[in-house]
């Protein structure tokens, strides 16, 4: 056991999987010699050489497209998009091929690739470096969309993603990258993809989130307890798609109230699907409208205004209280 940042934990997952399985290769812009612009792949090229830790030319569609070919060949490519705000350049490769080749070939070929990308705001970055658009991928049949929230679950989920026989988009909350350390066991640990987690028990209201916003959510849950005596139950989705609705619909049957939190723009965002599932599966138990605490439907502003854009603790608290007092 060692206390690690998320960056280190992801690096551990990559290192161990590469040690175990020589079909795992890492590729992307600056992932080799430079160790990635966030140092997530630091040291890998030294351990595994430039054929397995591949510095590619600057072309996202190229990176995704060759990853698909590699995966069909039998490798397990883990490609990096330097920021999620640039993975749109590879959108068609994911939608039209990664997601479809198993189906198109009637099961003859598989695409066991992972596309990693740091996402989300909070790091004083330039335009295009703070986006949260996981809904695009979650709406795409044939893909899986995973977002960890802590060093330990990032490591365990990435191991599962690498071993998954289908393509996984893996968004890493860059605001969490170095925000805190957590014990991460040296020994192998996996979390099944498509399974959410109860991270706090409660009976008054259910808070549902994933990724970077888990932290303000947990803070809000503590404050609700402290200040209002309210017991909030908290669900961490971990996988956005395939969405595990068993836990949160169960929880809302108990609490009757739900608050969803994500940085992504609100309209047609991930939260809407959670509302829809709740309406489908917990309808008769809903005591109040389900609140969505999200980014606004505008381009995320440059960093001077980012705090007001983001669904922070205060906004979550306010929404929970409104829901509770409905």
């Amino acid at each position, binding site marked *: 056991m060692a206390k690690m940042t998320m960056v280190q934990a992801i690096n551990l997952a990559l290192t161990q999987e590469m040690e175990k399985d020589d079909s795992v290769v890492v590729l992307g812009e600056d992932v080799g010699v430079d160790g990635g612009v966030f140092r997530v792949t630091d040291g890998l090229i030294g351990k595994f050489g430039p054929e397995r830790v591949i510095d590619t030319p600057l072309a996202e569609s190229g990176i995704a497209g060759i990853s698909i070919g590699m995966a069909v060949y039998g490798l397990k490519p883990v490609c990096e998009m330097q920021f999620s705000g640039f993975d749109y350049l590879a959108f068609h490769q994911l939608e039209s091929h990664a997601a479809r080749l198993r189906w198109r070939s009637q099961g003859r070929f598989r695409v066991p690739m992972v596309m990693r990308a740091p996402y989300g705001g909070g790091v004083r970055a330039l335009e295009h470096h703070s986006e949260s658009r996981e809904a695009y991928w979650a709406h795409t049949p044939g893909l899986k969309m995973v977002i960890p929230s802590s060093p330990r679950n990032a490591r365990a989920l990435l191991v599962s993603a690498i071993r998954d026989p289908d393509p996984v988009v893996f968004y890493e909350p860059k605001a969490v990258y170095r925000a805190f350390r957590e014990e991460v066991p040296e020994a192998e640990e996996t979390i099944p993809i498509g399974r959410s987690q109860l991270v706090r028990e409660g009976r008054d209201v259910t808070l549902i989130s994933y990724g970077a916003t888990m932290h303000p959510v947990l803070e809000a849950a503590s404050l609700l307890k402290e200040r209002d005596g309210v017991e909030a139950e908290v669900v961490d989705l971990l996988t956005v798609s395939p969405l595990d609705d068993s836990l949160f619909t169960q929880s809302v*049957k*108990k609490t*009757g109230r739900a608050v969803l939190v994500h940085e992504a723009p609100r309209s047609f965002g991930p939260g809407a699907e959670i509302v829809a599932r709740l309406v489908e599966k917990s*309808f*008769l*138990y*809903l*005591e109040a409208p389900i609140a969505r605490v999200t980014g606004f439907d505008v381009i995320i502003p440059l960093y001077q205004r980012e705090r007001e854009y983001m669904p922070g603790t205060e906004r979550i608290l306010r929404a929970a209280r409104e829901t509770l007092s409905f």
Partner: protein
Amino acid sequence: AVTASKEPPAAAPSTRRLARELGIDLRQVAPSGPGGRVTPEDVRRHAELQGRKPAAPSPQAAVAE
């Protein structure tokens, strides 16, 4: 009489609205709907038992019944 149950009652939001309008605690109402659901009728009946003036059924509630 029904004792207040700890379990939250099952009811559609529209039924909850009716209960709110009548000032009735849904947990006090005996459910008669499918799957133990409280229906608008249950709420009205309960209101009458409580001696409160039942609201005129809304048109959409009429359709639902």
